[in-house]
């Protein structure tokens, strides 16, 4: 047993592993390529080339081949196959899979250690944000002056679809991926996730999905927006098939990850870690995961229906065959609205955690916090039709959906109460995580207030489909979720690397991004109010100034994000050393050494109180 407790870097590489010793991301890509080629070859030769749907059939076959080959090549099937054939993994095999003694090479493999997976998720988030960010810059450059021809309209339309989906995927994993994996098991007092191999599977499945999504840009012709609007998606080229498959594969990844995180928290908590003593971030992570388990099946379902419409000429969404675009919209938003809270809740949970540690005070009204997050998750499954107020679908349901949507502002308001209550009269430690948290508070107010305008049908009849909506949800995603994610990164960075994220660069980045967000999206509200619809590749002269300002703001955000990237890269190996508990926090992840040893704990701790006692100063009121 003692070998398992040695630090990963110094321990010897175990004997086990078998075939897995030879596999890594490279073999996964090669495997994916080969099987994709095989599937393409078979489909190309044996399907009927005169069929109207021939090219889509070939494209879908190829993408299925890609993901199967990718899984084979990374070694996802080795352990299950061994289990089926009665030769289960030995302890040495498991230790090998956990990455013991393998240095940085373990980051490129099917490694099961939850901390490795957490770091891989950090990198994946940055890759997705980076790719989506480049597209955002291209979009804003096209829109810098009216009638610009930076990219052609066809390409532009592809950019808005892929930008949107890349960013959605990036933000779904931005907090829950890195920290749900890296810190949640330690916070619970567990040695790893409940299903370590599924954990690696979820990460590598995400990589496979991301690759498919990026390929869509090369295959092109994506005239459907990120929401895969029907019936127009039926007119899109084979890029659409890649797009839909990417989403389906992605939902496999999130489902596996969600089940894993819930099971970990439900079954692996150490002695004394009652639900009421869980760090609040754990609540945010599992409520989001549970909501995802409800929402994402709609996602794969609606994309699968789009695919069978395109390959087998079913007509779920095609009016001429008795289908309806409204069906697509309903299914999409049944997923889509809960999904925005899958994105938001982990960030909010992390900020509750951070506000408490940084203000040196307990989370204000822990139960309110849990109730608000749960209530929000519950409500969020009942509001989807606010995305369809102007479609003409079921006008009589307008009132009820307006009701449920406006009720959302009550739990949302409680978030502010908890955050402010926690900061109230604290001794607030103004470090990077705190600064980005204040940015969140400022931006999330604007996001919430504009959401209320949109939930009012007479107002939405004016604002729907305009840049106002785009600005609203960018205040949520960029202004709030991204700020929460950076705050969380700065907060837990020392646990991952043993070093602080560079405070100076981090502050420069904060100011650039914060100012950039206001410039970009306040001007975007103006474009929308003045009457500019969204998803425009060109616009009338009256929208000139506000668009120019928005583009400049977007460049400022990009500059800030690049500074942040620079801070991450330079701090990773060279940052100021931080020690195991730089913030003097009480939750378990800070009680273990840094770097965290394989299997985390020497002896599993016994918990006697929640992590929020910072001292005994008495309350004066």
């Amino acid at each position: 047993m003692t070998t398992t407790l040695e630090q990963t870097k110094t321990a010897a590489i175990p004997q086990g592993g078998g075939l897995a010793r030879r596999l890594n991301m490279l073999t996964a890509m090669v495997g994916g390529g080969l099987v994709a080629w095989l599937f393409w070859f078979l489909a190309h030769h044996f399907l009927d080339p005169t069929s109207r749907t021939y090219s889509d059939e070939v494209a879908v076959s190829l993408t299925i081949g890609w993901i199967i080959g990718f899984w084979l090549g990374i070694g996802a099937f080795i352990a299950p196959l061994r289990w089926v054939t009665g030769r289960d993994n030995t302890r040495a095999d498991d230790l090998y899979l956990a990455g013991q003694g393998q240095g940085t090479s373990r980051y490129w493999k099917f490694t099961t250690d939850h901390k490795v997976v957490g770091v891989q998720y950090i990198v994946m988030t940055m890759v997705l944000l980076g790719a989506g960010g480049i597209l955002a810059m291209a979009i804003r450059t096209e829109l810098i002056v009216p009638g610009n021809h930076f990219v052609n309209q066809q390409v532009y339309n592809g950019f808005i679809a892929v930008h949107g989906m890349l960013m959605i995927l990036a933000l779904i994993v931005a907090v829950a991926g890195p920290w749900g994996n890296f810190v949640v098991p330690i916070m619970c007092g567990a040695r790893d996730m409940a299903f370590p191999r599924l954990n690696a599977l979820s990460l590598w499945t995400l990589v496979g999905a991301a690759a498919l999504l990026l390929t869509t840009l090369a295959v092109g012709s994506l005239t459907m927006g990120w929401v895969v609007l029907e019936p127009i998606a039926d007119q899109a080229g084979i890029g659409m098939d890649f797009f839909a498959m990417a989403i389906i594969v992605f939902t496999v990844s999130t489902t596996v990850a969600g089940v894993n995180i819930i099971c970990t928290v439900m079954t692996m908590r150490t002695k004394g870690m009652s639900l009421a003593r869980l760090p609040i971030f754990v609540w945010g992570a599992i409520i989001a995961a549970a909501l995802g388990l409800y929402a994402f099946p709609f996602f794969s379902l609606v994309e699968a229906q789009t695919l069978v419409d395109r390959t087998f000429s079913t007509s779920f969404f095609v009016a001429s065959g008795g289908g309806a675009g409204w069906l697509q919209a309903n299914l999409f938003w049944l997923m889509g609205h809960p999904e925005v809270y899958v994105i938001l809740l982990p960030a909010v949970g992390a900020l509750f955690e951070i506000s408490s540690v940084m203000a040196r005070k307990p989370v204000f009204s822990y139960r309110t916090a849990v109730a608000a997050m749960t209530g929000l998750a519950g409500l969020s499954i009942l509001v989807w039709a606010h995305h369809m107020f102007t479609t003409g679908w079921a006008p009589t349901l307008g009132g009820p959906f307006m009701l449920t949507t406006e009720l959302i502002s009550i739990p949302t308001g409680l978030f502010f109460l908890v955050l402010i209550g926690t900061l109230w009269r604290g001794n607030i430690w103004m470090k990077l995580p705190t600064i980005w948290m204040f940015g969140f508070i400022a931006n999330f107010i604007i996001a919430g207030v504009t959401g209320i305008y949109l939930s009012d049908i007479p107002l939405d009849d004016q604002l729907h489909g305009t840049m106002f909506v785009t600005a609203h949800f960018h205040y949520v995603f960029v202004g709030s979720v991204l700020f929460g994610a950076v705050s969380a990164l700065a907060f837990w960075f020392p646990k991952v690397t043993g070093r602080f994220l560079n405070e100076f660069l981090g502050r420069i980045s904060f100011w650039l991004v914060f100012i950039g967000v206001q410039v970009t999206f306040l001007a975007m509200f103006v474009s929308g109010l003045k009457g500019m619809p969204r998803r425009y590749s060109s616009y009338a002269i009256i929208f000139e100034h506000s668009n120019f300002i928005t583009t400049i703001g977007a460049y400022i955000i990009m500059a800030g994000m690049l500074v942040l990237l620079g801070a991450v890269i330079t701090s990773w190996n060279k940052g100021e050393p931080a020690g195991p508990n730089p913030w003097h926090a009480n939750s378990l992840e800070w009680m273990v050494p840094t770097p965290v040893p394989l299997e985390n704990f020497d002896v599993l701790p016994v918990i006697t109180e929640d992590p929020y006692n910072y001292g005994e100063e008495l309350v004066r009121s």
Partner: protein
Amino acid sequence: MSTSTNKNSYKGLYWIWAALTVVGILIGLYAPAWLMPRSMSNNMHLTVLTMVVFSVAAAPVAAGVYATALFALRHWAHKGDDVPAPGPQVRENAVVVTTWLVVSTVLTVFLLIWGLGALAVDNGSNGKNPLVVDVTGQQWVWSFSYPGTHVQSNELYLPVNREVEFRVTSVDVTHGFWIANMGIQVDANVGTITTIHTTPDKLGTFNIRCTQFCGLNHAFMVTEGHVLTSQQFTSWLASQPQRA
């Protein structure tokens, strides 16, 4: 109580709050009418009014959060590089939580009642012999026809002060029929007719833009509309070629 002597004096907080609330209310009162297109119908008057009311109602809440955040930065930020001492270990405050819940619920209910009322007015028809216009979207043009007249046009002409009923449909993909000056919007769906009402009450010209992504030239699916006096409208109708 090491950091700051006026820790228990919240006067500053009230002042910031009051000042920000005033700023918020001023923005709420003036920005919508200033930024939004000229109002040309009953629906748009209501839209602008709703925007104003919601902004004014939101101003004190948003200002409260901003004021507290600023106040916290000013008075509760720990100075120095050492670890701050523990703050007051307050975990619950039933009065604060309850008050917050009650206030936010009351506000929400107010917004909801306003919204439902406005919705009833907004969607309603006054039932007095509306002018019917058939609107058809098609990649990437709008066309309008006036039932009972055989007139078809690519620009929209409407008489002032008479209710219009738009019957909207599409022949290819979904489009969004939106008159920004009149505060009305509805999708043009294939195989279905959707209906909206409005009563133009100002003379002049306006734009009709497509709000639902419809492919390559979505950004160019724009046309003009004109509100005429009823005599002008009648003579315009009469001057049009009669297409079958």
